């Protein structure tokens, strides 16, 4: 791997570091001794063919899977094997490849699920102190409204409609709002364009760039198959194949890498 380019925005410190990260499922090695660094405030593209371990990487980072070996450091603290709850509380938030919204619940409810750590969860507060609860509700309603305003003003009027009534692109927007409402430090986007048309994808990427411009200190890792999008929005790309990192650098240089082309197109015999 000596030839992988490591031109990063060298001034920014690492926000997330994976060292020797391995995850096995029986005999399958989904992540194989992966070293990956995410720098603060960058947009990192994570690409690779199907089954190369991109989603597994997200699942290990967010605590859904435990790593078989290796370490994960987030903002200089060791978070290897931390629970999903812990990772959310330290500021890592995500979307899912197969949109995992709660369809019967309203837009507002879905966004508030992402705001869990900022809501008062006390039984007494929720059941007995209704006027204090109302104040907290109002505050969070305004926050959700402001966030939704960035993504899609028309949706603001539909705050109390079930999410199941929305088209795919709006569901993705709500999913991203749910991940952003708690102001995470690191946002993991798992194929946000899955199931959307080309134009819709472009629209969504604009939204993501807009949010990033408005939010200081937000770092994004995005898994995406639309290379046009990756080229447009990422500052750096990491390419995985069979759970290993095969290239690391700006999109243009990794796209030109023969190893990457081989991974996507196969070996010429």
């Amino acid at each position, binding site marked *: 791997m000596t030839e992988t380019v490591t031109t990063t925005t060298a001034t920014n410190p690492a926000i997330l570091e994976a060292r020797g990260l391995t995850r096995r499922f029986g005999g399958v090695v989904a992540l194989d001794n992966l070293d990956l660094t995410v720098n603060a405030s960058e947009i990192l593209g994570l690409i690779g063919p199907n089954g190369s371990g991109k989603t597994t990487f997200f699942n290990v980072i967010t605590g859904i899977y435990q790593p078989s070996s290796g370490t994960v450091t987030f903002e200089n603290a060791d978070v290897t094997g931390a629970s999903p709850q812990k990772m959310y509380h330290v500021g890592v*938030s995500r979307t899912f490849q197969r949109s995992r919204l*709660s*369809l019967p*619940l309203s837009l507002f409810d879905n966004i508030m699920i992402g705001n869990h750590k900022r809501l008062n969860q006390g039984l007494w507060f*929720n059941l007995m102190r209704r006027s204090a609860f109302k104040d907290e*509700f109002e505050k969070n309603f305004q926050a959700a409204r402001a966030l939704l305003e960035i993504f899609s003003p028309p949706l603001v009027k*539909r705050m109390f409609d079930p999410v199941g009534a929305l088209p795919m692109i709006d569901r993705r927007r709500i999913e991203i709002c749910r991940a952003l409402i708690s102001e995470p430090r690191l946002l993991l986007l798992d194929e946000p364009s899955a199931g959307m048309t080309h134009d819709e994808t472009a629209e969504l990427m604009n939204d993501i760039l807009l949010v990033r411009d408005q939010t200081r200190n937000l770092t994004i890792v995005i898994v995406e198959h639309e290379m046009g999008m990756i080229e447009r929005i990422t500052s750096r790309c990491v390419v995985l194949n069979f759970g290993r990192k095969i290239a690391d650098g700006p999109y243009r240089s990794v796209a030109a890498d023969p190893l990457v082309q081989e991974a996507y197109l196969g070996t010429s015999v």
Partner: protein
Amino acid sequence: MKEMNLSRVSSHAPLWPSLAALVLSTVYLIALLAVEEQTLIIGLLAAAGVAVIAANYVGVSDAVSRSFAEHESIFSLCAVVAAFAVAAYFHDNHFVLLLVVTVILYIVATLGLNVQFGYSGVLNFAGASFFGIGAYTSAVLNAHTAVPTLLVVLIGGVCAALIGSLLLLPVLRTRGHYAALVTIAFALLFKTFLEVNDVLGGPQGLQVGGMNILGWSFNDNLSIGDIDLSFYLNYFLVSMLLLIGAFVLVRRLERSWIGLNLDALRLDETAAGCFGLNIARWKIVSFTLGNLLIGMAGALFGMVGSFIAPNNYTFADSLILVSILLLGGIGNVWGVIVATIIVVIVPEKLQTIQEYRFLIYAILVIAVLLFRPDGLLPRPVRRYFPGARS
């Protein structure tokens, strides 16, 4: 679509359609309870079916539900008044008042079950067992101690919640159907335990002492002036208090962040976990709170009936509670009320179907699941402060 939503937020649906529906239902209920002749009852039931279908067809039920949604708190008060009107009408009729009290306490129990099934999705097929724990608690405490009977009701609930926590470990370690199996096993074990346990009366059961608050004995008939009142009116009062308390509690629970947590974990445990939700904690909260309500209803019901036996708390009785939930619309507290009224009162009035009641429940559940899977009154989207802008 968009205009519709706007109008729903800004327009003001009048109060009268829902009130009119409430008055009609109350009058109808009184008529149904008063009539004894079987053919007349069948006619009344058929008329109700036709009326509901017709109301749906001409759009009346839409107007009613919109008016209800906007004025729910006033409607709730009127519903309480309606319940008192029914009780007042039958003030000297033991049989009907016992039936009304049974409906009320079953509603409280089903509200508890609703917190478990409807909100957090923890399947509990041992509802009748927890109801029974409450009843046996009041039997034992009233016979052997001088604990104030109102407190006994609360202790009955606490006992149900505590014994329920024995089930927590297996329930938390399993998901969906497997958790349901754990509760089914508990329901079967519970009845067997009662039957072989001589201290608790064995298969013959136990007498339960009546309620007594500061010398006011609930099992004595009352009279105001020349009017004789059934002693069941005492129990009606206390049951209504319990129901109002349980209803307000469950309603507030649903309309809070906790209700949101429970829904989130029912719909997608993994996603909820990724947003910080402590799955075990909220399952424990909902299971315990649900059992508390079921146990309190059971403790009071034991005193109302004054006699309990293991055969009243079988797995089949648990299934009746679940079928009430399915019929009414899982997660909708008003659906629970409507469905309990139907499931408890209809077989009791329609003596001809008494023997076939389980058959009819089964057919009812299958029909609901096939044709109206969300129940008679499907649960609406959560509004935290209905009537206000949001």
